[in-house]
């Protein structure tokens, strides 16, 4: 057993930390919060040059061919700086869906473009019913004239407004179970009848959209994977993206702990640094316990999806349940221990606090995942 990172992974961490400190200070994050695009072409191109846009894609498609343990290292570092922009939606949702379900030619075209920074692809999965399971997919795709016609509404779609294409989960049939009859379609941004509306979000570093499809016609070559069999690869995408999200959340929580500890050392009250008082010290210790456990359970999930062990879905749900609660609690504790200053717009804490909240509900909160754990352990 080796539950640690290897030298290459430690190097990746050091490189990512330095790069992001230089390229993604909070002044940049704040600019991107106000910028509808949420990212600059320059920053995106630099991510491509680092090889990070294709980190987990095969080398044959312009990627680096690394795994989710490696990716977790990068995601932790991105979480530390609340990285804005469509990295998560492009690399872990749209791109990963193509990798999991797409044909060789789809992979070659899109993964190569994504890795090189010339295309962004997102995943349109959730709908106004706000469900994470297969039954939530109700957007209809009817077969017509050798292709399909898609109609319906997708909600909470990451970065659809800047994506070049969307992988849309649609229902082509009502099967025996909700998992049957889900199909994936690659829909270009300029498809007729496709309308994207950017929504105002609490976490301004993560852009969410409403996507409406009104009789959007696509050819049969738009199918990603087999017709009606889209849920299985989609579930793998969601599990993997969830692990990456957990890692990002761990990085954010770790950073809040560091910010709070530093503040508790210098902020003086009643003649002493506030960190000397047990009311503050013990809460900081609680934060550390949460952060360390969150990392442990996330690293295990990353390893489990990399190795595709039977327990992988359970590992993912354990991680998301734990980390969802942990990041929220740590962020709230950080805010509390900073006192009034932590409540100001000027202080960076609220960027983390809001990211924690948004991430908590992305792909299911702790309650959702605890129930999934209960099912997977045969309770």
């Amino acid at each position, binding site marked *: *057993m080796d539950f640690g990172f290897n030298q290459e992974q430690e190097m990746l961490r050091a490189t990512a930390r330095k790069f992001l400190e230089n390229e993604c200070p909070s002044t940049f994050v704040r600019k991107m919060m106000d910028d509808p695009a949420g990212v600059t072409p320059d920053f995106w191109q630099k991510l491509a040059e680092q090889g990070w846009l294709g980190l987990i894609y095969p080398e044959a498609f312009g990627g680096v061919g690394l795994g989710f343990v490696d990716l977790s290292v990068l995601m932790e570092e991105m979480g530390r700086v609340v990285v804005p922009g469509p990295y998560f939606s492009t690399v872990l949702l749209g791109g990963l869906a193509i990798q999991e379900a797409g044909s060789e030619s789809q992979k070659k075209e899109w993964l190569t473009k994504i890795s090189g920074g010339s295309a962004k692809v997102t995943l349109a999965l959730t709908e106004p019913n706000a469900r994470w399971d297969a039954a939530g997919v109700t957007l209809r795709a009817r077969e017509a004239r050798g292709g399909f016609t898609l109609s319906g509404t997708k909600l909470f779609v990451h970065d659809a407004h800047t994506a070049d294409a969307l992988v849309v989960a649609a229902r082509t049939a009502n099967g025996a179970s909700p998992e049957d009859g889900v199909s994936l379609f690659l829909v270009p941004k300029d498809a007729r009848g496709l309308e994207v509306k950017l929504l105002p979000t609490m976490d301004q570093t993560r852009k969410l959209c409403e996507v409406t499809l009104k009789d959007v016609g696509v050819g049969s070559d738009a199918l990603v994977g087999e017709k009606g069999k889209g849920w299985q690869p989609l579930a793998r995408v969601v599990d993997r993206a969830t692990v990456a999200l957990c890692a990002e959340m761990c990085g954010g929580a770790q950073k809040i702990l560091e910010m709070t500890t530093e503040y508790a050392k210098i902020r003086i009250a009643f003649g002493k640094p506030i960190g000397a008082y047990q009311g503050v010290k013990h809460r900081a*210790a609680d934060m550390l316990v949460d952060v360390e456990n969150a*990392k442990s*359970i996330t690293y295990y999930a990353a390893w489990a999806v990399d190795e595709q062990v039977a327990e992988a879905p359970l590992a993912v749900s354990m991680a998301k349940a734990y980390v969802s609660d942990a990041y929220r609690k740590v962020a709230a504790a950080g805010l509390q221990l900073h006192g009034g200053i932590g409540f100001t717009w000027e202080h960076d804490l609220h960027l983390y606090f809001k990211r924690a909240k948004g991430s908590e509900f992305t792909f299911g909160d702790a*309650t959702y995942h605890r129930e999934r754990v209960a099912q997977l352990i045969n309770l």
Partner: protein
Amino acid sequence: MDFRLTPEQESFRNEVRAWVKQNLPKEWTSRVISGPDVPRVEAYKFLREWQKRLFDAGFIGLTWPKEYGGRGLTFMEEFILHEEMALAKAPPVLNILGIAMAGPTIIAYGTEEQKKRYLAKILSCEEIWCQGYSEPNAGSDLASLQCRAIRDGNDFRVTGQKVWTSIAQAADWMMLLARTDPDAPKHKGITYFLLDMHSPGVSVRPLRQITGDAEFNEVFFENVSVPAANVLGGINKGWEVGITTLMYERLALGFGLQVRLRIALDALVGLAQRTKTNGDVATKDPIVRQKLAQLWIDTEAFKYTGARAITKLLKGEMPGAEASTGKIWWCETHQRLQDIAMELQGPYHQLMAGTDWAVDQGLWQYTYLRSRANSVEGGTTEIQKNIIGERVLGLPKG
């Protein structure tokens, strides 16, 4: 990162598994549940024999040097062993204080003579050890201890009192911290002694706990003679030595705690599966499902955080922040687990052993009460949080 075992580790696992299957005592497995037991007084004799059998089979002291009765293996084998024992719901190890604390401290600070004299008998359970640290006025503030040891030729004369001393009534030896220089600053005047519990002047008085058991004791010393050769690590160096013991305690007990938590959780899930609430099986209740799933997650988190610490040890590094969290986390999780066990039983939770109406022969009632000590013994949760705050996070002392 790799959680798979090497072929050697795999074969060690099989060795343990096969042995346990063959040798697990029937009188233990026939009990309704195998709860998260700490050694109970009435089981001392049985557990002494169990440890002897484990020792004879080579499953005690895995990481200790071969010349002192160990097997010279790594923490990885220790980890595997504990996991297998948990899966098999094996009985606890009686001489845990000797194995987890006295032994490693003697290995670290002892003379060759001391190592030869004490170590093997700890493993075989021929000599049981207890820990003489806490006093009525020195608990969390351990360094203020007052038990005196005064030099008398080749001996020391010990007078004073210890308290909360687990297993003292069965112990042959004690790790004793006593004050040898009352004029020095409080951390600098303490010496660590290996004290023979059968010496004249030692008296042990069992203390009845809220469980009704008397698993720990008060120990009184009246002019007890201890040879100077039984000083460990040097005169007035006892604080440093004693802290080492506590470090080992937290590390080594971590393995055991993980096992106990897993056994308790499996037992609790079993209880939930055969308990009815409002006319239906408890595991169908969404709130019960949430609570059990959370315990499952927290138990796994405990294991993986421990695994990160072990990985660092295996690589010859010192464990970092992750190693400091275990004790707090375990207490919190285990106490919550015991709360849920009571909740599941509804009004039956009131019944102790002694009536057929009691659930699982009243074992949960014992473990529920016993679990309250978890956040006090071995360093209170409050002290643990001070340690994390000051030594890991670098916050100033109060």
